[in-house]
């Protein structure tokens, strides 16, 4: 618990006590596209893949992953898959770099 005597601590204390603790809610299934022909409004949604990849990278790199995801609706399973993808991709890249470095050290530059 924060020290209520400090200003930031007081703010956090009352926010937690009055507004509440973190809660997870379900927003629903994201719409890929929507149309409203009678009013002439067309809203095209994105697949969300790019956004999920960005959020996964942000949450992996951020000091506070919860802060990086705060207020951003996300598809949980997709986020996990994206994180796994980044980790596997990073591992592969690191392996290739290592292999390249050893190759250069052993055989010199081509």
């Amino acid at each position, binding site marked *: 618990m924060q020290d209520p005597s400090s200003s930031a601590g007081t703010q956090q204390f009352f926010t937690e006590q009055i507004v509440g603790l*973190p*809660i997870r809610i379900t927003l629903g*299934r*994201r719409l890929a596209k929507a149309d409203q022909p009678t009013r002439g409004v067309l*809203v095209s949604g994105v697949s969300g893949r790019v956004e999920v990849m960005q959020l996964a990278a942000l949450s992996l790199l951020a000091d506070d992953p919860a802060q990086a995801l705060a207020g951003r609706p996300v598809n949980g399973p997709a986020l996990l898959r994206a994180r796994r993808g980044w980790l596997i991709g990073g591992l592969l890249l690191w392996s290739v770099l290592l292999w390249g470095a050893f190759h250069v050290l052993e055989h010199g530059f081509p």
Partner: protein
Amino acid sequence: MTHWHNDDPLDASHDTLVIDPVKMNIVNRIAEGSAVDGDLRFDGGLLLQGTLRGMGEITGRLVIWHTGQLQGRFKVLGDLYVLGHLGGVADDIDRDTLIECQGTAYVASTGVSTGTLLAARLRMYDGAVLQGPFKTLRPEQSVPVLQAARNS
């Protein structure tokens, strides 16, 4: 009535949102059963579980909870999450409600909007009801909602 389609296999499961009042700087709350009316200004986000009517400005994120209802003319300087009612419940279209959102407006599957919604971006979820008009708000086209209301 709006018709919605979903044909993206990525969206097989639902989106979730973690509402962390501390991290999202939502420092204000109108509890369920409470009704606030008037010319109001909230510095910091607002969790609306009761009823808010009138006009004003919310500097931060606004979460309209499942039990919440917002009516009137408000400017939201942040993202808007609609899980409850935006505009009148009984009306098909609430012409007295006009919300200007400078960020992204998320209308959840439980959300109902009968008022006019102006937002930089809109994200709808399956089951959301958008009965009132929606207009895209470009940064250079920020509509002076409050100014117009105050001058009238």
